[in-house]
């Protein structure tokens, strides 16, 4: 049911963990739904220099977390906001229909992390 790319990203996920002094953090989902994604970003001069994640969820949730964090590294925060779940799915070579919601969570967690960054940034007055 999963593509080889999904299984590879699930087996050997990249960017697992937390960033100690993160600039933005977003957490989406709930234990009741069976999927929770937490994304941490480090931002330097508007560019995402590091992104890490922790995910409680199915193989597709873990694979999309890995791929999405991989995609936004090196992007500006505005570019990262354009990373839609469709783009993540394309990189993974597709997802089964009942797994699409997992990729939506990845997109939302990244957006939440960027919003968090923007709030903190604004609060610092820079």
């Amino acid at each position: 049911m999963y593509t080889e790319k999904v299984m590879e990203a699930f087996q050997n996920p990249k960017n697992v963990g937390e960033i100690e002094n993160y600039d933005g953090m977003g957490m989406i989902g709930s234990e009741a739904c069976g999927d929770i994604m937490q994304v941490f970003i480090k931002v330097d001069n508007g560019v995402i220099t590091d992104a890490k994640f922790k995910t409680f969820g199915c193989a597709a949730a873990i694979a999309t977390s890995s791929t999405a964090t991989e995609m936004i590294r090196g992007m500006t925060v505005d570019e990262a906001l354009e990373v839609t779940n469709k783009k993540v799915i394309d990189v993974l070579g597709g997802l089964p229909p009942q797994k699409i919601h997992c990729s939506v969570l990845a997109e939302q967690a990244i957006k939440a992390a960027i919003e968090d960054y923007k709030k903190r940034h604004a609060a610092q007055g820079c």
Partner: protein
Amino acid sequence: MKNIYFDHAATTPVDARVLEKMMPYFSDNFGNPNSQHAFGRRSVCAVDEARDTVASLIGAKPSEIYFTSGGTESDNWAIRGAAHANAQKGKHLIVSAVEHPAMITTAKELEKEGFEVTFAAVDEFGRVDIAKLEGAIRPDTTFIGVMTANNEVGTIQPIAEISALARERGIVFFTDAVQAAGAIPLNVNDPAVDMLSFSGHKFYGPKGVGVLYVRSGKRIGKIITGGHQERSMRGGTTNVPGIVGLAEALRLATADLSQNAAYVASVRDHFIARVLNEIPYVKLNGHPKDRLPNNANFSFRYVEGESLLFSLDLAGIAVSSGSACSSGSLEPSHVLLAMGLPEGLAHGSIRFSFGKENTIQEADYAVDKLKEIIVKLRALSPLFPKDLKNEVY
């Protein structure tokens, strides 16, 4: 790469002796038992013999045995057939909250037709609460359906007590014995049941064939209409090789039952003991003692079931998850929720179901792999508390 099968509650391989018995009925003796010629008569003999065998193994009369396409059809037929046949008497049905979807879904369909259904509550182990079930019985209750043993957590139901409650009130009592057949002794008179279902492929027989037992004198409507097969109660060309295979598989399973059950339980108990001793934050779901000999069902805290299932699959270990993602729905197992498990734990449940070809070495390999996988997935989990050590013993 290992190839370990711990999913016998899903299906089992066909026993070589069963396959050998079936083979002639695919080609040499291919006749339709409804045909009037010698080809047909040879098939009639085979089906009659199979019916006699099945009946004698479960304490029934041959005329009380109906062959079907499997457990789902038998369950559908039991509840729908009994509900319709008794609709003049009353339109209230009771089924347990932990029945197989073949029952739950059909009961919900019957609700749309104007029947009322009570889904009887279970305790934390998945056992039907007898007092609550008795309290749910009404003057217009015509049917009570409670499985002999649960497919997800293996809990054995108190069907003797439930049957007594039902039958002393003239309510039809049906038990789905799909998971129990071949695993624990079955006899339609001890405890007495009015209807009982099982399926060939759960005890090393073929897929696509099952049985519905209906006690003499109990009325049941048809759901598959057609020709005169199965005494005009179930149309469709008779599945001769399947029926021959089911009977032989049940004969073998019954003959070897105590020996196989003891062996399978020994592998299963070894597995359970190691998991509980060596992996922290694990819950064994189901009854600690009153459970099928082949079943172990765990919730691994902070870990989601499907990612665990796929990780085990990649290590060559086949198991089943009752959790959301694998089944394609977002709902966690209705069985675990009915038992009162929090949704998070219900999402992290995995069923290991053992068979007679499994070994202690396989169980040990699986525990060793499981420990590695659990540590890896907990390291990934945002739910794993920072003040806990992510370790196994």
